[in-house]
């Protein structure tokens, strides 16, 4: 199979020593095994994220996303832009769709880009890594590089919001997307398909500004995973991962719970199933160690 090439948009959190560095590391390992070549968009910038709305406004947010597109079009022509971060993907795709839909907006955006000598033509496609995996490889294709089964591992697939809404993965429902479950099953693990908090919001950026309210969300997400007998949670979103993993200790402290639920990325599961080491899968990047997964990696 020919190598598949994509323009990679890792986003601010998926940089080395950033909060989702384990996502970056495991993504790279996973892509190696799948023979995917990711090339970072040269000099990419932050997407603005949703929370940028307040100060950023509409056009500046779209313009900075267009800057990334322009860079990709220029330097990686013909390659789809692939994001791993839910917020990056959403901001980018939303910007792209709005630019595609409005000639006026396109004009204004290019006026802004011109200030840096750039131009966006509207050719690059914006995709999420999960879309690449499902659409370009398919579940059967994802099975191919498997070296180990995740047999016996009970995993709650937590999809969260922004990889799911408003765009989502083609063919999946907003209320009960099944792709994480299918991925887990593909890798031989036990998917907890009835896990009902799979699309509950973790609070997003409000984890910072409204900790009480967000932690209530997080508590529901973790508690339900326990109720269904989960041994870990898997997610495709760095903010979901961070919020759900990091705040468990806070919740324990405040509310007397004893949460200790590992939260991993699908890329980590795949790296392990594809025979990668715990280090390849960046399992050392977990605040709550995914011991069972480490064990399989160590086998």
């Amino acid at each position: 199979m020919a190598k598949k090439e994509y323009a990679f948009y890792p986003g601010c959190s998926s940089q080395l020593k950033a909060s989702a560095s384990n996502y970056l590391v495991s993504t790279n390992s996973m892509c190696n095994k799948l023979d995917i070549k990711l090339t970072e968009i040269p000099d990419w910038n932050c997407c603005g994220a949703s929370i940028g709305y307040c100060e950023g406004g509409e056009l500046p947010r779209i313009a900075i996303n267009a800057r990334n597109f322009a860079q990709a079009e220029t330097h990686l022509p013909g390659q789809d832009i692939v994001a791993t971060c839910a917020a990056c993907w959403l901001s980018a795709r939303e910007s792209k769709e709005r630019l595609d839909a409005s000639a006026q907006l396109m004009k204004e955006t290019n006026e802004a880009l011109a200030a840096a000598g750039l131009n966006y033509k509207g050719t690059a496609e914006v995709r999420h890594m999960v879309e690449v995996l499902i659409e370009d490889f398919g579940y059967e294709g994802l099975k191919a590089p498997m070296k180990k089964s995740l047999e016996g591992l009970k995993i709650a697939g937590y999809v969260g919001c922004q990889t799911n809404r408003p765009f989502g993965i083609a063919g999946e429902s907003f209320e009960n997307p099944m792709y994480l479950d299918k991925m887990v099953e593909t890798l031989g693990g036990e998917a907890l398909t009835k896990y009902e908090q799979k699309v509950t919001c973790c609070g997003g950026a409000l984890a910072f500004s409204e900790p009480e309210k967000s932690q209530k969300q997080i508590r529901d997400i973790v508690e339900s995973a326990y109720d269904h007998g989960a041994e870990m949670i898997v997610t495709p979103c760095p903010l979901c991962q961070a919020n759900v993993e990091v705040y468990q200790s806070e919740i324990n402290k405040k509310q007397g719970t004893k949460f200790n639920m590992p939260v991993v990325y699908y890329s980590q599961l795949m790296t392990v199933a594809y025979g990668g080491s715990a280090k390849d899968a960046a399992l050392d990047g977990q605040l709550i160690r995914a011991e069972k997964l480490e064990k399989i990696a160590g086998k």
Partner: protein
Amino acid sequence: MTASIATNQTILVVGGGISGMTAALEAAECGKQVILVEKTPVLGGRTARLYRYFPKMCHPTCGLEINLRRIKQNRNIRLMTMTEVVSATGSRGNYSVTLKVAPRFVNENCTACGKCAEAVSAEVANPWNYGLDKMKAAYLPHNMAHPQRYVIDPSIVGTPEGEKAKAACPVGAVDLEMKEETVTLQVGVLVWATGWRPYDAAKIQPYGYGRFKNVITSLEFERLADPHGPTGGKILRPSDGKEAKNVAFIQCAGSRDENHLRHCSRICCMASLKQTQYVREAFGDEGKSTVYYIDIRAIDRFEDFYQNVQKDATVSFVKSKVARIAENAENGNPILHGVNTEGYQRYAVEHDLVVLAVGMEPEITGVKLPDDVILDSSNFIEGSKDQGMFGAGAAASPLDVNRAVQSATAASLRAIQVIRKTASTEAV
């Protein structure tokens, strides 16, 4: 084969529900030749599967009985059941229509004695009850089935079960050798009275139809309330067979929603108001109905019915499109989440059962409609460019029964006019 039973003076009515029967009968009773084609083994269509009609709370089978009596005695109508239109070509006054006739495996000798059903043990899902229960694979579709002839389900043809049915028939009516036939007819005019089907409730994801057993559609609820339905008329919920005394009705399930159906399906408000009275009928003051709505569309005299239901202490109204349904894992109760927009009250309420008032979609799937047919944005039939084909009833617009009958009667006259013009052209 080409049948010579029709000419360009014949009106072909497609669909044997209330609209199709009406269109066919009204034309036939004006002396016109009509072929009435029905896809299923029996006449009656969707209305025959309703327990009661609003607003009179009378039974659809009552009107069906009269219409069947009219059809049985009217020699101007030729009825073809288990027949579907495959294609229609030609133009006003001169259409060539290809029909596919599925085998019933029972011929006209059948006396509906029921021996075949006694002999057969295989069961199939019962479409009359929307698959809520099973029936024998040799069956009379329902009590008032017309033609009053049994049907052998194709699944047992060629099996020992099929042979059992054949052996049990005292009058040699079971014919397992029947084959699908294709028939071509020349007709002058077509009336599409193909009716409607419920919007696929599973597509309304937040409501969990298909995921939560105690979330059902309004059509399924009709069958639960009907003494001839799967529960013998007891309102029992699917998850555990317990009496569903506290029922939520969710309006606009699919309708008035650009994610689903753009149009308002018109009947659902009245249908739910009616169904609250099923709950009252079953449980008296113990029953509890809650209607979640955007606008209650109880148009014209139906308003009287609405006002009466409003007076019923067991029924309450919440102006809210329910946001989502969750399930109480312990008791299987659906939990409705949303906000009452009148004054902004947040709720998370458990009910025994949720009934989705699903919207109407035109039922024209599988038919190769001629290019001439004009459809509106929701695929209802507006008419045809050549004015030789007409939509009638719910195929033409989301209509309640009395408006469907009105529409079918009108379509019938328009069809007669085409026939008349064809005749006068030929006479020249």
